């Protein structure tokens, strides 16, 4: 739950629900970017995602490093990714 997972913004959806399509380690899901409205996110940007919400904008190096570390966590990372796969935010 507390893991912040890096994702890359594929598309900001202008649907009035503050959502963006992101790619997290190959898993593509919608997340809420309403907490980063001051960052004016666009496709290609990297964000740190907590429970379906992008909480901070990060650079690509940080994203790679964080993903690498998370993968090394084993079960906690697997659980988080499994939960993400089930997610259908709309």
């Amino acid at each position, binding site marked *: 739950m507390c893991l912040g997972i890096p994702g890359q913004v594929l598309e900001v959806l202008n649907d009035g629900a503050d959502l963006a399509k992101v790619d997290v380690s190959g898993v593509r899901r919608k997340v*809420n970017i309403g907490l980063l409205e001051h960052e004016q996110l666009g496709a290609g940007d990297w964000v740190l995602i*907590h*429970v*379906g919400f992008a909480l901070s904008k990060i650079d690509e190096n*940080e994203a790679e*490093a964080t993903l690498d570390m998370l993968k090394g966590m084993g079960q906690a990372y697997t659980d988080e990714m499994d939960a993400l796969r089930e997610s259908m935010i709309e």
Partner: protein
Amino acid sequence: MTYASKIDREQITHYKGSLMRFVDEFRDAEMAQVLSAQIMSLCEPGRQYKFMEVCGGHTHTIYKHGLEDYLPNTVTLVHGPGCPVCVIPMGRVDDAIFIATRPDVIMTTFGDMMRVPGGRGSFFDAKAQGADIRMVYSPLDSLRIAKDNPDKRVVFMAIGFETTAPSSAMTVLRAKALGLDNFSIFCNHVTIIPAIKAILDSPDLRLDGFIGPGHVSTVIGCRPYEFISRQYAKPLVTAGFEPLDILQSIAMILVQLDQGRCEVENQYTRVVPWNGNPRALEVISEVMELRPYFEWRGLGFISHSALRVRDAYADFDAEQIFEMPGVRVADPKACQCGEVLKGVLKPWECKVFGTACTPETPIGTCMVSSEGACAAYYNFGRFTRERVKEATRT
């Protein structure tokens, strides 16, 4: 003049800027050795240092990577209360289960919460007995469940520090915008600052500095910690989650102590802005307000340490909608999570650690989450396992 003064502070900062940039180098044991040597040289001979890592994510990194092996014996790391499921009191779990077992309710929760024991079992137990409890990745997933089940009332078990509170608040705002009248949250969000203050005021523990939480600080920023340096004269360094981040943060704390400073510094500038995330803070305060007091597992009642839903959003507040027992339940006598959460005891010093209490059958909350100090010790404790054996022999 100590040897430490030969270490240039700039040199340590240099590691953050250039050396920590590339992925491969995060794992570089050589770099860890360099930092380890710096830490060693910054320690005043004969002085004992106790630093608390507030955040459970840091505890996890420390034990996974055996970081204590890189520290001199005079530096002790004490694990703090920053594990959201660890601090939930049993009575609140019972209240949540009471709501969840109503036939008209679907309870949604993060997976971490499933095994947390209340006085009368956990969510897992309640689910096995027929309660409709569903794990979700995001509170927003609960909204879809609410839409798909208009004849049910969907309650999200909202837990966590300031990292997850904005998500719950945003979800309430979204539910309101969608006109969903069958969704509410059972708000158990807690705030980190009062817990740190309670620990600083605790007579049991003398700390020399803090490794500040990473993700909580992306929301609250670094300013709220300033009372720690001003009123308690202790340094705090907000840290990232890589092993080298933590070692570097310890070096930064030691530099401060060596130079007779106590300040709030930010090692995790890659992610944590000094002023936090103003939008997240705004959303929290739109939907939630501080409770006069809240019980923390192991720490007892702490003033203004938790959030509740504001009256303006009462339609989305499970506490306003449902009756619940609201009974305080004492922790099991054998469990010493309270001492562990305050950093007074190391996990392996608890009588039931690794014997009656394991991640599969946790008695205490610290054994439940992968961020709990006991689970981290249990899963990764290497030399500490030996100490457990020694301890249980005597």
